[in-house]
């Protein structure tokens, strides 16, 4: 029996940079990933802490930062996707 509070607490964006690296602000630090395997390790660490990693790009971040509804919609999608997975 897995009972209760199965939803992650927040979204942690991992943003692809123009130079091909990925930048994320997580656990009080700015983390830069220089390879796909580093990104995968970071995603696992974020998931293991009860959060949702979200790979994205700067042009998607701006609309999200400006609209709480969009963030809520994204959160619900990540929550449902994770439960189904």
């Amino acid at each position, binding site marked *: 029996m897995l*009972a209760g*509070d199965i939803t992650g607490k927040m979204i942690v964006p991992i943003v692809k940079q123009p130079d091909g690296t990925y930048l994320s602000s997580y656990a009080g630090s700015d983390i830069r990933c220089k390879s796909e395997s580093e990104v995968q390790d970071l995603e696992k660490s974020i998931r293991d802490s009860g959060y949702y990693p979200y790979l994205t790009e700067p042009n998607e971040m701006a609309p999200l930062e400006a609209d709480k509804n969009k963030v809520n919609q994204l959160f619900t999608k990540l929550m449902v996707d994770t439960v189904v997975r």
Partner: protein
Amino acid sequence: MRETGIKCFVSPGNDDKWEVDEALNKSETITNPEEKVVELDQHHEVITLGLTNHTPWKSPREFEETELAERIDKMAAGVKNMNDCIFNLHCPPYGTVIDPAPKLDETLKPVLSGGQMVMAPAGSTAVRDAIKKYQPLAGFHGHIHESKGVASIGRTKCFNPGSEYGEGILRGLLVDLTEKGIKSYLFTSG
């Protein structure tokens, strides 16, 4: 999992948005037992409620105690053998060793005294009263991460394994159920 034949129940808690239910209910592998009486085996039934009383966090599934009591009563009415029933109620019973949570100030920061966090009961009176009234075999609870433990209410053993999700640790509870009751139990962490 599907091939093993092992029953797996996954149910929401107060922190889970309502969209979670739809995702759980679509599964062909797990069962969402929320607000139902389900048979664990030929001797034991389980009733489940993920809703809680009100919290400072305004989570999606918070209700008045009277509403919780009504929903528990409705399920209890469908239990065939209460002596061997398990109450899988997310919120622990109020005023027990498994419900103290950090007391918060108006800015939602923990209240400190002498350098220590002040704790206060945060469980449900409806859950406590239902367990007193129906005296099931066991209560399986969660919700209050800081208060792992076992409480006795009459003949009913109530368990809370606590939570360390933020550390990437899944806490659990193994209970060996027999026709005669609870043979043994073990808290797990890993």
